[in-house]
């Protein structure tokens, strides 16, 4: 029979765990807390006891939440690095087509504020729209035979005889500026999501 006191003990413990895991990826963090919660429930069910002493025993055996997090993912030096000028410059550069993409990517990889994983995801998020765009452009530029080899960067319509669908100023330029956005947004979000200890606990 759980009481308010035992519930509070368990909640406090899980909150400490969640708090200690602030630097972890959200999905991983949620999973860890859920696993530990299940463990507590299972342990109490097995001991057929839910009194305060039983709960304290279960929590003691689990060990300090900080130790669990340390075993999962020691707070890496990455999460200590705050976003500085380099990171801001990188994010802005990523939005600028061509040279910006290149410079942005170099800056991102030079920075210590992102993990290697995030850097790779950022690069992929940049590459993917560009490739898709490139393919789309090639397909649109040369639907019938001879013009298929026009490089994606070449905007000039091939000869006057044919209407080239994307020769207008609008959509392509727009799309070029959008291509860097997913990557910049993702990396920016990863920077924001690196809080120091949040003031939720005493």
């Amino acid at each position: 029979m759980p009481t308010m006191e035992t519930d509070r003990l368990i909640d406090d413990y899980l909150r400490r765990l969640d708090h200690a895991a602030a630097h972890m990826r959200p999905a991983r963090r949620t999973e860890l807390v859920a696993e530990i919660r299940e463990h507590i429930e299972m342990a109490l069910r097995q001991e057929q006891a839910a009194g305060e002493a039983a709960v304290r025993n279960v929590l003691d055996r689990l060990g300090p939440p900080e130790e669990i997090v340390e075993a999962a993912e020691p707070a890496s030096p990455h999460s200590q690095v705050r976003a500085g000028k380099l990171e801001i410059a990188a994010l802005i550069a990523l939005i600028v087509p061509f040279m910006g993409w290149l410079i942005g990517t170099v800056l991102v990889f030079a920075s210590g504020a992102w993990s290697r994983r995030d850097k790779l995801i950022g690069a992929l998020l940049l590459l993917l729209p560009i490739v898709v765009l490139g393919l789309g452009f090639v397909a649109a530029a040369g639907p019938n035979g001879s013009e298929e080899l026009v490089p994606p960067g070449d905007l000039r319509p091939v000869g006057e005889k044919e209407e080239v669908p994307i020769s207008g100023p609008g959509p392509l330029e727009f799309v070029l500026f959008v291509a860097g956005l997913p990557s910049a947004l993702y990396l920016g979000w990863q920077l924001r999501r690196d809080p120091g200890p949040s003031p939720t606990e005493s």
Partner: protein
Amino acid sequence: MEPGETRSGLSQLRRGTVEYCVLALLRDGERYGFELVRELSESAGLVTSEGTIYPLLTRLRKDQLVTTTWRESESGPPRRYYQLTESGHAALASFVKEWARFRDSVDAILNGRKGDAHHGD
């Protein structure tokens, strides 16, 4: 616990070894997480606390040495069962071999029987 102890040599050794103990426990068939954790924590000196085993299980899963399946249980909520994968079996086998050599050498040196790496039991 001292803050530094989590990174001490002994805890590193423990951490590296316990992984294979998990694999060994799964050698003869699947088990669910709680059962694994209790069994490991009841072997003296193997783990400092039960909670640290869960991250380890996650790591094994990520490294594809184990897979997991959720199953209904007669009493209570569904349980996550762990099974050894083929590469888990392989990793365990090579560890068992390495470990025997390692243990014998360490024992020999600790007991001052240098050069006598073969254990006499």
